[in-house]
């Protein structure tokens, strides 16, 4: 174990996998200089041949990654969530649909790393939390690590996986620190939730950047004698719905904290599953603490109102406790 930043953990995962498998390579805009941080040191170690600076052509290189994957390479593509819209056709029409449409003939081991900046005064064009869109499309695995250890372990699993994966790298977590296993065999499986804190009164399912807020809310509620279970699904596709249903079965109360905008969010889907499959376990109406349904305003006085916070989660927990 060593103490690492989330961003370093992502880079460790990439580097370890690149050392093991010569078919893995990284492409994206300005990746050699690692302007977003996670690719630090990769160009020095792996050189021009495996670290490719691309032109500003998201549709072009998102699709080139699909083609390279279809014939045996294992590309990792770096981008920002906000630039994914520009390459959307390749993500949806090709990466997501090729395997099904061609009756299972295409195997596409490609990882799209979407750095998800928000909360820092970047305004509406640079603050997207778009993972629910990709949950809806199907054919793509959707990964949202919430801790540095998961950032590394899920990155490694993503690179080894034979399906297209989108790694949403939450910008509010990039500088967070935690213990990260050094073992190159350490991975975190997809579809297995992480219970960050066990509890008996209320379940808080927290996604990506909402994870630390949920943990803080649980700590605060503990002082008031309320026992909160915090569950991070870690991957939204596949989703560990049994872990969520089991937890709600135990606590009878559910709060979902999700940095995506609330309409058709990941929280919406999770609450819908619980409503359909565990309604009679519930002792109180479920609460959704997602981002407000607005574009992200530039000015801090407004932006700070938008996202889930510890206080909003505490309030929601209290509501479920009646």
């Amino acid at each position, binding site marked *: 174990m060593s103490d690492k930043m989330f961003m370093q953990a992502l880079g460790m995962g990439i580097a370890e996998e690149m050392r093991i498998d010569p*078919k893995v390579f990284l492409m994206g805009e300005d990746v050699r200089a690692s302007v977003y941080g996670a690719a630090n040191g990769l160009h020095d170690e792996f050189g021009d041949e495996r670290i490719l600076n691309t032109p500003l052509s998201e549709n*072009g*290189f998102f699709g*080139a990654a699909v083609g390279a994957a279809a014939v045996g390479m294992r590309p990792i593509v770096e981008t920002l969530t906000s630039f994914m819209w520009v390459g959307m056709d390749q993500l949806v029409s090709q990466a997501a649909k090729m395997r099904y449409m*061609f*009756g299972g003939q295409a195997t596409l081991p490609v990882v799209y790393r979407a750095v998800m900046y928000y909360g820092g005064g970047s305004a509406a064009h640079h603050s997207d939390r778009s993972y629910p869109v990709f949950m809806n499309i199907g054919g793509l695995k959707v990964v949202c690590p919430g801790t540095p250890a998961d950032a590394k372990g899920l990155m490694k699993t993503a690179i080894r996986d034979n399906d297209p994966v989108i790694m949403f790298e939450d910008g509010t977590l990039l500088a967070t620190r935690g213990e990260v296993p050094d073992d190159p065999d350490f991975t975190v499986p997809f579809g297995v939730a992480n219970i960050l804190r066990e509890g008996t009164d209320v379940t808080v399912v927290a996604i990506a950047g909402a994870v630390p807020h949920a943990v803080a809310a649980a700590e605060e509620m503990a002082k008031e004698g309320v026992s909160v279970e915090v569950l991070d699904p870690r991957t939204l596709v596949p989703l560990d719905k049994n872990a969520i249903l089991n937890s709600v079965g135990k606590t009878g109360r559910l709060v979902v904290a999700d940095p995506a905008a609330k309409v058709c969010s990941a929280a919406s889907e999770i609450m819908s599953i619980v409503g359909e499959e565990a309604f009679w376990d519930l002792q109180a109406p479920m609460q959704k603490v997602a981002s407000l349904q607005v574009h992200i305003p530039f000015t801090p006085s407004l932006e700070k109102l938008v996202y889930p916070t510890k206080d909003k989660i505490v309030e929601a927990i209290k509501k479920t406790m009646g």
Partner: protein
Amino acid sequence: MTANISKDTLMLMLERMWRIRHFELKLTEMYNAGEVGGVHLYIGQEAVAVGACAAMRDSDYIAGNHRSHGHPIAKGANLKKAMAEIFGRIDGYCKGKGGSMHLADFSVGILGESGIVASSVPVATGAALAAKMQKMDFVSAVFFGDGASNQGACHESMNLASVWDLPVIFICENNQYAVTTSYKDTVAVEHISDRAQAYNMPGVLVDGQDAIAMYEAMTQAVERARAGEGPTLIEALTYRFEDHSLGLEKIRKSEYREDSEIDEWRLRDPLDLLTKSIVDSGTATQAECDAISAGAHAEVEEAAVFARNSPFPDESELYKDMFASEMPVV
């Protein structure tokens, strides 16, 4: 004219062109009988796909578009599986999940066809990237229309391929129209191949009715690609003899091409031109050529019987193939 091409290659091209022609004629018959939907026919353009694919190896890759019955057949796809796919049957290439616009056969190097116009251009470019990175000598080619040439995906891919010297051949089948719109109204340069200059790659204008010309242009482009010298843009001037898709003439409210124009292009039927070259050069007799057509016709008839008799996929197929891994889809 046929000096550099072996008899085998010429006869193979003729055979594949006849397979496509008979396949499309059969589909027209089946469409009129209500057996299949309004597919996009390749009649008139056969020389483009066949001439190009004849210059490629089995280990090379191609990708196509919505008008793509011809491309897989030109690359060697199995007619039965192709027909069954169009019928939505389990024995189709994609188990009925792709249909007419997605006749992929990965086993003969077909990376798929895209219903989204120009969307397979980046994919083919990526296959070429894989060749270069692995220092392997396969190449890829992508077929797209004059309409598709205006998509960003095309421009992005050509620039990317040129910057990285990728072994990809961009084959623009300029059949003069995108649905009802003439390329003269949408393309700012005289020839689409002129755009190659902007990407610093060779741009070659070819008579797309002439399979031999197509084969020769493609042979050069493939050699160049295999030698690590990068991509080529080939513009094949061609014409679709039928409407954009079967049945469109019943829907659209106005004409967009003169009958005289259609007649003029029909005089240059790619099958007639190739047969004439073969016979005139003494490579084979008219009777040999006729036998090839008859053979292809019989194969297509067999394919139709096969497709009709193949079962529809069972409900258990519905969620299969969403992911390579075993996992619940919902």
